[in-house]
């Protein structure tokens, strides 16, 4: 899945997806849940707390 497709499905910009991937931005719970819903996996499989 491309960054743009994920961004569109989640309702954020592609730049925000890039920032999340590079660990430059911690998304809100709402966006985090939306991302995990897109991939149909539990939240903790996508995000972890360091």
């Amino acid at each position, binding site marked *: 899945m491309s960054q743009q497709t994920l961004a569109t499905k989640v309702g*954020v*910009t592609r*730049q*925000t997806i890039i*920032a999340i991937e*590079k660990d*430059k*931005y911690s*998304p809100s719970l709402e966006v985090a849940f939306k991302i995990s819903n897109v991939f149909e996996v539990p939240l903790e499989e996508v995000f972890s707390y360091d």
Partner: protein
Amino acid sequence: MNFSYKEKSLITSLVVTLLIFGRYFFGVFSNVTATPSEQFDFSDVIRVIILIAILEGIIKWFFSKKDEADLVDERDKLIDTKSYRNSYWTLCIGAWFILMQLLFEASGLWSNAYHTLVFTSPTFIAHLLLLFFVLSEVIHFSTQLFYYRKGV
């Protein structure tokens, strides 16, 4: 180095503001000893603001044709909020600086009557206030750019 549309817009705003207002303030403050009527022409300020708006509009339009749509999400709002906070503090410092200058003058501590006349004249104060307004905008643009590049 890849820049998003928002980053390009911010760089454009920053450069245009710095160039045009920089030139304007250089002209104003290098001529600070002039008489008040020579120093301040409000139509100059209007001309500068209109020029900035036109230039920014043209350059942003040029970039937006090749780039993504102007969608605003939670990260943009967070960055905007943080940079507005920095901008607010800059403006507060400016307001306090001007207030202290006026209080200092009112207390009669200026040793030189000529300096009192120049540095506390309504014309000079108006320019100083405008300078802090512009400075707070520059802080707003540059901190936004910083957060977009370095993360928030």
